[in-house]
Each structure stands twice: as structure tokens, then as C-alpha cells.
């Protein structure tokens, strides 16, 4: 039961990481400059008021106790109240996470479709001008940050040259799928570029390997038509590394999404986090950071498990 052992190990590791993450997030807000009480009450509050609020918010308890309280209620879905917005964080966070998830999903589809197409085309035309141009553009794509690609997209497609897409904003899925996708297109494209180029390169390499393999040569010698060689023999074998890379990097998008949401004024969890930082809203910072880190850790877990399932060779090493 080697496979079961590595899954259990991986789950335990994830739990450990989550514990470390929550400790770090808590420590950060402990070290946050600026006294929360003076922030809420202002500088001219009486000593009595300060003492009452400190007790009310549980700030007079020792740090370890506050950490346990915080984690305890977070596990039960209570993330406290936002200082600036004066509303429970959980509902707010869920809604923003939903919108971010929609954005990330669209980007993921783009990465999968775009990356595979890039990889297949460059591999089938290996060494030709088509390969060189596409590979070159993909190389540039990996070396640019999201705020640059996003800005360039806005300049070209959202007002500068063409006005095909809105430069910012997102109204949610309530207005229908069409308008939502129209607003999602540029942010999702921006979020997907780096990973798309990476997936493209991996697919290119594995497709070229498959094209040169003995089984493809045998199939060709048997007289199997070329399209059938590609769909039956090349693609199934070439796509194992592609899918592995695709899923192992879902978590990678979590970081990029913060910048993308800032560029396109997209009301997701990334912008909520930036808002919280700008406003020094520490319960909100804690909640956002914890949520982002948890999404990252879990998507890495899912990615690893899927990779394990797809590629039996990984199972031997375990973790």
C-alpha cells in the first residue's frame, strides 16, 4: 500500500503546513505597527473606554490564548468582524472568494487550451519559423509580470487601440454569462499568460519526445495514417506531463491573482486583502491571508495527488 502511505503522508504534511501558516499569519498581525484600540477609538478616548474595549475584544488575554480562540472560531467559520466595514468577515470573504474562483477557473481553462495548443503546434512544426516565433513569444510571456501584461492588454484591447473589452470592473454572474465572460476575458488572460507559456513549453518537449519514440515509428511503419498516429499515439503519451504540470501549478495562480485584481479593479479576494492592508484592518488581513494561504496549500495538495495518480513513477519515491 505504498500509494496510500504517500497520500496519508501528504495529508499530514498539508495539516502541518496549515498550522505553520496560521501561526505566521497570527504572528504578523501581532507585530503590526499601530495600536488597534487607538485606531478604533481615536486618540482622545478615555482610559476607561480603552480598558473596556480591550477586554471586549479579548486583547488582554495572552497571545497563545488569543491564537487558539482565533483558530477555534475560524475553523467554525467565524472570522471576526471587519474593523472598517463593520460587518462579519466570513460572508464578505466567501463572496469575494467566489468571484476570484470564477476568474481563476476561466484562466485555468485558458492555460489548458492555450498551453496545449502552443505545445502541439510548436512541436509539430519543430525547427520551422512557426516554432521559433511562437516559442519566442512564449519566452517573452514567461518573463513579464502580470502588471505589465495586464497594462499592455488594456492599452491594446480596452481603449488604447481597440475598445473590445472593458478596462476594469466585474459585475458578477448575475447579469448573465455573456457579459461576465466579456469582463473576465482580459483579467483571466493576464493571469494565464505565464503558466500558459510554461505549459506550452512542457507540452512541446513531451510531444517531441513522443514523436521520436519507437512506438510512433512502429505505427508509421505499419502505415497508420499520420493524423491517427498523432491522435492515438502522440497525444495520449505527451499529455501526461502536461496535465501533471497543469495541476501542480494551480496554486501558482493564487499569487498572480492579487496583482491581476489590482490591475483590472476586480472585486476578488486579492483586492480585499489590499484594501485590508491599506486600511490596517487586522482581522480582515488575517482572514484574507489565511484564506489565500489555505487555497494555495489545498490546490497544491490536489495537484500533487492528481500528479501521483497520473504518473505512477512518482509513487515510488513518496514524500
Amino acid at each position: 500500500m505504498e500509494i496510500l502511505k504517500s497520500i496519508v503522508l501528504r495529508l499530514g504534511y498539508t495539516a502541518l503546513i496549515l498550522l505553520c501558516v496560521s501561526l505566521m499569519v497570527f504572528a504578523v498581525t501581532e507585530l503590526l505597527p499601530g495600536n488597534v484600540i487607538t485606531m478604533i477609538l481615536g486618540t482622545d478616548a478615555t482610559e476607561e473606554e480603552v480598558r473596556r474595549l480591550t477586554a471586549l475584544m479579548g486583547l488582554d488575554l495572552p497571545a497563545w490564548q488569543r491564537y487558539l480562540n482565533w483558530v477555534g472560531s475560524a475553523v467554525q467559520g467565524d472570522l471576526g468582524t471587519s474593523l472598517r466595514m463593520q460587518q462579519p468577515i466570513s460572508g464578505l470573504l466567501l463572496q469575494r472568494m467566489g468571484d476570484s474562483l470564477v476568474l481563476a477557473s476561466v484562466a485555468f481553462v485558458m492555460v489548458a487550451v492555450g498551453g496545449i495548443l502552443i505545445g502541439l503546434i510548436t512541436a509539430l512544426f519543430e525547427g520551422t519559423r512557426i516554432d521559433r516565433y511562437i516559442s519566442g513569444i512564449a519566452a517573452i510571456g514567461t518573463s513579464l509580470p502580470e502588471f505589465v501584461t495586464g497594462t499592455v492588454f488594456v492599452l491594446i484591447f480596452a481603449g488604447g487601440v481597440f475598445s473590445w473589452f472593458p478596462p476594469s470592473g466585474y459585475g458578477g454572474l448575475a447579469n448573465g454569462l455573456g457579459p461576465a465572460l466579456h469582463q473576465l476575458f482580459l483579467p483571466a488572460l493576464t493571469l494565464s499568460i505565464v503558466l500558459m507559456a510554461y505549459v506550452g513549453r512542457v507540452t512541446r518537449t513531451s510531444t517531441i519526445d513522443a514523436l521520436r519514440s519507437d512506438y510512433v515509428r512502429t505505427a508509421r511503419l505499419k502505415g497508420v495514417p499520420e493524423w491517427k498516429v498523432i491522435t492515438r499515439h502522440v497525444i495520449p503519451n505527451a499529455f501526461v506531463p502536461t496535465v501533471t504540470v497543469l495541476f501542480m501549478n494551480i496554486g501558482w495562480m493564487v499569487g498572480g491573482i492579487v496583482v491581476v485584481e489590482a490591475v483590472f479593479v476586480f472585486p476578488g479576494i486579492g483586492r480585499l486583502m489590499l484594501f485590508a492592508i491599506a486600511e490596517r484592518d487586522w482581522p480582515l488581513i488575517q482572514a484574507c491571508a489565511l484564506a489565500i494561504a489555505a487555497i494555495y496549500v489545498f490546490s497544491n495538495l490536489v495537484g500533487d495527488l492528481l500528479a501521483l495518480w497520473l504518473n505512477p513513477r512518482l509513487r515510488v519515491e513518496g514524500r
Partner: protein
Amino acid sequence: MKLLKDRVFVIAAAILSLHVLLAVFGEWLAPFPFDEMQFMSTLSGPDATHWFGTDQYGRDVFSRVLVGGKTTLVFGFGAVAVCFLIGLPVGLASAYYGGRVDQALMRVMDVLMSFPTLLLGLLILIIAGPDMVSLIVAVGLVYCPRTARIVRTAALNVRQSTYIEAAQARGESGAYIMFRELFPSAVGPILVEFCIRLSYAILLGASFNYLGLGIQPPEADWGALVQEARSTMIRAPWTVLFPILFISTLVAPLHLMADRIDDQLKGGKGA
């Protein structure tokens, strides 16, 4: 050196040197003070006086890009220095001592790496407050586990060599063997890592500045310039185009150079 005969490598190195020169002499070359506002000529297009045009406060974009370049390179190299200050000893020690030391060091690095890079940097910047030093430390800390892993792998490849054994037999200290024997033999892959890390450090730092969490006005790097020009970029595209052009031409050569050095190390002829 075969690399000097590689045309792509030479061109990339030349562009990189040009960037460094512009950064060093930028303030001296700049035709205007980078923060001088001229309200008579706001958002004017590129012309003979203002080569890259002016921004919404009438500041000369050319001068701002030149001075911003210095800021960009300072935090780029600074962050990589932090990265290697931590990553190099950790990676070398992991490879040299192996066993428990290796296990412990790599687990710590794993925990650091299990945070999304941007989030970890954000948290560090929140604690340290937004300025140049915090930015350098934040980006350096975020990336040091990756550097440590690369150094470790590179050093492991030469760990079993006879000259390491010889040095141990001579009774050399661990530090001596790590830095005088292991490091020089593993310098190739480490150089590749340096180029890649520098490019990522510049991109991550510029992203933080774009988000307004790094250096603060009036200082401005290329990330901050793009951010400042957000509201005017459709009317005055030159306010964003030039910073974007400069950051792209700084980062792309680093990637190309890393690729070429890597090809040389593998003994291949390059793709």
C-alpha cells in the same frame, strides 16, 4: 570562453550592461530633476525637450525612467544579495553535511516555500513598513528557499568528488570545504540561478511597488511609474510604454543569459 562567441549571449549581456550604465549615470544624464513638476506642459507627447513626454504633473518621463532604473536595479541586486546570503550557506551546508542537518534545513525551506510568494512578501512588508530596505528583505526572504535548493542540488553533484575527500583528510574545516571547494565547483549552476533570481526579484519587487506596498513617493521605480500612469495611460500611452519597455528589456536578457549559460554547462549547442 565559448559564451563570448554566442551572439545571443553577447547581445543580452550588452543590453544588461547598458541598463547598469544608465542606472549608474541616470541622475546625471537626466535632463530634468525626476520630481520637477511643470504644470504648463502636462501629458505632452514625446518631443525634442521631453524625449519620452511628460506625465499628469508635467514631470519628464525620460528623467523618471532613468532615475527609476537605479531604484529598480538597487532593489533587484539587494534582494538577490539577501537571497544568496541565506541561500548559499544553507544550500552548501545541506549538501555537505547531509543527514539530519540537510533534513532540518530543507524542511524549514519547505515551510517558507509553501506560502504563495506574493502573500509571504506582503506579510513581511506589512510588518516592516513600506520602504526600500523592507522591500529588499521581503523579496530576498521570499526567494531564498529556492536559491538554497538550487545551491544544494549543484553542490550535491560534486559532493562525492575525491578532492572533497582529500580536503577532509587534510583536516580542513567545514566552512573551508563548503566555500573554497564545493562552491567553486558548483559555480556554474549557481550563476544560472543568480541570473534567474535577479530577474524574478526585479519582477516581484516591481509588482510590490505597483501595488504601492514597496518604496513610497516621491521615489519611483518602473513598477510605481506604471501604477502612477494608470489613469492617464489611454490618453497618454507614453507614460506607461517607456517604463514597460525598460523593465522588459532588463528582464528578458537575464533569462536569455541564464539559458545560454545553462546550455554551455550541459555541453549542448543550444536550442
